[in-house]
């Protein structure tokens, strides 16, 4: 139960981070909406990659 909950909370947390960084980059809402999906997927994917690397490192290197 804990793992799905934490994954859900992680995903929820990524959404506003992506959105507000786009607010800084683009002053117009149309550009934010257009770029949001790609930015969100890229951000989540990067974090998942880092997580996997850390898990692998903790399993095999420590």
């Amino acid at each position, binding site marked *: 139960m804990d793992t799905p909950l934490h994954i859900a*909370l992680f995903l929820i947390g990524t959404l506003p981070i992506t959105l*507000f960084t786009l607010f*800084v980059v683009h*002053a117009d*809402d149309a550009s934010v909406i257009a770029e949001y999906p790609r930015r969100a997927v890229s951000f989540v994917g990067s974090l998942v990659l880092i997580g996997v690397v850390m898990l692998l490192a903790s399993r095999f290197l420590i």
Partner: protein
Amino acid sequence: MSEDAPEQPTLRQSEPNDGVPVVAVLLSWFVPGAGHLYLGRTGYALAAFLLVEGLYALGYLLSDGLVFQFLDPELRGPAGFLLTPEIGNLGALLAHVQSQAPVTYPPTPAVYPPAVALGGMLTAASGIFGALVIAEAHWSARRTSRFAASPALDAALTWLVPGLGHLRQGRKLRGVVVFAVLVGVLVLGCILSENSNLSRERHFYYWSAQFLIGGPALVGELLFGGERVTGPVELIDIGLYYGALGGLLNVLAMLDAYAWRESVSMGLDPVADRRAKPEATSKQGSASSPMGSGAGSASGSAADKYRVGGATKTDAPRTGSSKTGSSP
């Protein structure tokens, strides 16, 4: 510029150059209002001093100056205070830290006055307003007209109520989204941490980040901050994270509101101005803000073409270029 295009906002250029922005910033950082005094704005300087220092003095009195006793003794060194909102009012913070009794071992437990939490909120608010006064001083040194609206006011409104600065700018959708998302994030943090995040005494640094969301955090703490924690809070870590996240994201919202108003006050199109490439700005030697204000000045680039009032303009005058020497 095409003949049929609507006129650019006319900015009065008759005023002398106010001063060096960095000097105004440093003066304001140590003594709120000193930067404006340096720039010749005596009235504003006095008002800023009274507001920022008055808040700090009131908070100090209410808390008996014991806010930093919330920190563990080993964290009460000079660097321990750098991540507090009070850093925006550096002079008062340094005086406050100097007034602290030296840490003895074993540390003597402090007896907090009843209003210590409110006092801590006021000193923190003083720091936030101090930072806004600093931003205003930087703007004042660069502005081309004293009639141009100050971006710091929009940032201040966004701190008080997330999205309010955007609404003032007519950006209704963004204002509503900013408010809904940030308040939602804060509420989620409060639910997950069972309101234990609403206490500076328990979570000093997380609280500092959370405080950046402004009004919602203040109201939440006044309503629910006194609740006792009677057992383990299972998701406290994630709750604290969400609360801090809301505050930190509000800083981005404040920057967005500030940059928009700055572009408009300089007679630039805020959308194209934000898109300007940094190299285009630096080639002109007129970088004014980390957020942009360089569009329209790079001749021949895509940034030269932008829309103001529905008409496409090219090579628009950069009205603020004469006072855009540096940025903190």
